[in-house]
């Protein structure tokens, strides 16, 4: 928010807003916001840990602000990245040109656990594997953004982007009159259009889209039902679907109804017990056969995960150059592969100032943040790396940007990241905004909700 001791222009009006808000009012508003979240049912469910199963993700009322110029550059970079990642997926399940050209080591692709042999040679409609690409970004300077990771499977959190905005508009309407904030509420319509645009060739009418959820015990169930509702499509579980003939059908009160596009929120391994895990009760037996014969589209396509693997991440700028012939607009965080002997040596010598992550990990678990760890923790982690170097990558601890955040004493800077959601179908689209996650603990760099992170509304201001 501040630059050279001055309030940066996009935050100017907000500074006045916070100064004019006494602590009592702030507490009142915070309670009101929480009551709204609970009343609408925007919770993530945690079963099996005891206590209240309906948890709230902490919501910070102080918005994060981008100018339109800042956003336009981000938007170009994100779309570029989404196109390159999809080109990569089509390539590696086809001729594998990028591997043949020696730009990416073959074993990283073909030996990757997320590489799905069951779809080799199959090109999904419009050549799109990942229809919703969530790109996690951090800012380290006025014009410096780094991509932390890509999410090509089923990035979650978009319902928070939409609901955070709704709640801010409801609680602080004056802010929206005073600031030219670009709306994000087109997202569900764009998502529906994107999904309909990738209907399989065999679909000869207005495509039927459905969201496949693991069920109401899933922690992201609210988001699944929210998106189904906003798009006006059915929310199905595996038990609601069956395969007959060349198609997938829903069980309805009027008899079977054909489904053309499935936006699945379950992992590849659970999609089809006949093709993947035989013990999966979440999936649909025979689904993959229908998929491969062009009877249904699955979004994201099975196998899309190979593009967002942390070992592949290093090569995304290379993909941009290779497939698009463009210079990458967004940079990667410099990354050391512990699988390489020379890089491993550097990592082990500098553990106290690096962030080390598991290659296949997610959710902020199984990582080491060197500067925030004790000697004992570092030693323990060193042993884990030495036991299996290929399982780890390391990155420098970035001087992450902070955003003003309401804390007990008033306002304080807290580290934030940003996840915009890029849609790819017939067109590549992005609404002006995303999910800002904030590390609520002072000094913390970990923004995951499972580790004490919260969320904020994200504004893009029109000129």
């Amino acid at each position, binding site marked *: 928010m501040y630059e050279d001791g001055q309030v940066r222009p996009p935050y100017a009006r907000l500074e006045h807003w916070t100064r004019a808000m006494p602590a009592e009012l702030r507490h009142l508003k915070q309670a009101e916001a929480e009551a709204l979240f609970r009343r609408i049912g925007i919770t993530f469910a945690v079963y099996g840990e005891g206590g209240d199963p309906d948890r709230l993700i902490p919501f910070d009322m102080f918005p994060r602000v981008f100018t339109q110029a800042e956003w336009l550059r981000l938007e170009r970079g994100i779309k570029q990245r989404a196109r390159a990642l999809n080109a990569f997926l089509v390539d590696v399940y086809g001729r594998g040109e990028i591997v043949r050209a020696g730009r990416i080591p073959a074993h990283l692709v073909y030996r990757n656990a997320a590489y799905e042999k069951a779809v080799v040679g199959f090109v999904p409609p419009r050549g799109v594997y990942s229809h919703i690409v969530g790109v996690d970004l951090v800012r380290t300077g006025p014009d410096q953004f780094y991509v932390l990771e890509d999410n090509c499977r089923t990035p979650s959190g978009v319902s928070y982007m939409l609901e955070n905005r709704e709640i801010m508009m409801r609680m602080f309407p004056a802010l929206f009159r005073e600031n030219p904030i670009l709306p994000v509420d087109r997202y569900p319509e764009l998502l529906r259009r994107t999904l309909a645009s990738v209907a399989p060739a065999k679909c000869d009418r207005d495509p039927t889209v459905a969201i496949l959820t693991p069920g109401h015990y899933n922690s992201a169930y609210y988001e699944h039902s929210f998106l189904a509702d906003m798009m006006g499509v059915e*929310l199905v579980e595996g038990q609601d679907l069956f395969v007959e003939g060349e198609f997938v059908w829903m069980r309805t009160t009027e008899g*079977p109804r054909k489904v053309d596009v499935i936006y699945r929120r379950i992992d590849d391994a659970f999609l089809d017990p006949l093709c993947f895990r035989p013990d999966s009760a979440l999936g649909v037996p025979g689904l993959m056969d229908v998929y491969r014969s062009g009877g249904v589209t699955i979004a994201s396509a099975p196998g899309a995960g190979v593009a967002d693997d942390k070992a592949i991440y290093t090569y995304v700028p290379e993909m941009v150059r290779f497939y698009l012939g463009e210079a990458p607009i967004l940079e990667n965080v410099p990354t050391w592969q512990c699988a390489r002997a020379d890089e491993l040596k550097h990592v082990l010598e500098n553990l106290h100032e690096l962030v080390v992550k598991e290659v296949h990990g997610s959710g902020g678990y199984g990582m080491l943040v060197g500067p925030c760890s004790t000697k004992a923790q570092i030693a323990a982690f060193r042993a884990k790396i030495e036991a299996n170097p290929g399982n780890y990558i390391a990155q420098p601890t970035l001087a992450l940007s902070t955003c003003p955040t309401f804390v007990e004493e008033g306002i304080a800077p807290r580290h934030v990241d940003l996840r915009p959601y890029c849609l790819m179908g017939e067109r590549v689209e992005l609404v002006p905004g995303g999910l800002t996650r904030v590390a609520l603990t002072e000094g913390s760099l970990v923004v995951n909700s499972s580790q004490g992170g919260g969320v904020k509304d994200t504004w893009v201001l029109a000129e």
Partner: protein
Amino acid sequence: MLSRTADNLYWIARYIERAETMARLLQVGERISLVPHVGGGGFRNEWDSLLQASGTADGFARKYGEAVQRNIESYVFFDHDNPSSIASCVAQARENARIVRTALTAQVWDALNTAFQELRQLERTERSELDILALAEWTTNKTAMIKGAIDTTLLRNDGWDFLHLGYNLERADNTARLMDVKYYVLLPQLDLVGTGYDNYQWITLLRALSVLRAFRWAYGGEVTARKIADFLILNGQCPRSLITCACSMVTHLDRLAEGYARPTGAQALARRIHADLAGMTPDTIFDEGLHEFLGRFVRDVAALARLVHEDYLSGDVR
């Protein structure tokens, strides 16, 4: 709509209706305990028959043994071991609603979710601070809010029909069972008009169905067993009478059959049940035997519930 969605809607309505019936039973039970009893048994007998009417007598006896009023109140309102307790019904209805959020309006969800959140508050409150009549009233207020939200905001589509099927099936079953528990006081040969006890029992029955005032307006004069049977079984003006419920089930099954362009066995059975009732008089019912008639009706309703499941909710529809 998805069969699973229809199934959830149908059960939301059944749970809400059941919660309402339980709240009424609590109100009546509380009232009985305030009146010096005439005849044998006193409030214990009354509570027992109320537990029987709700089909929870066995579960209660296993858990608590003797019918102590405070235990009964806890069992009927709070106990999650009792699948028909108000707490169980509200929690189940809300969980079902969470599963089918997309088939409900924001107002309906809000009404269900608010009831659930307030229930959680009540569960955290000291029992000694809670008045059972206030709890019963809280319940009927919440169920009225939910029904009101359904009636004023929901699309008149097939989901609306499944909700109303659930309401009316549950209500028909509840009314019939409640009468059956008390059938002996309605037998004509025990028609001892003017003796305080029987008169009191009849009035209790009408109160349990919240139709005492309605009854007085509709019939006036002396309260007799024949009038009560007529009112609760055959009078289309009574909101909880068997024929009102049957009529509504026919309406909604007809709408579904028309909307889906497919007649079903459930529709045929509902029509048969309704036609049977329409052809009856209090005399034919008492000739058959009230207990026998009610037993037959409850079985018919159970058969109808099975057909609704097979024809619409099971997911095996072809």
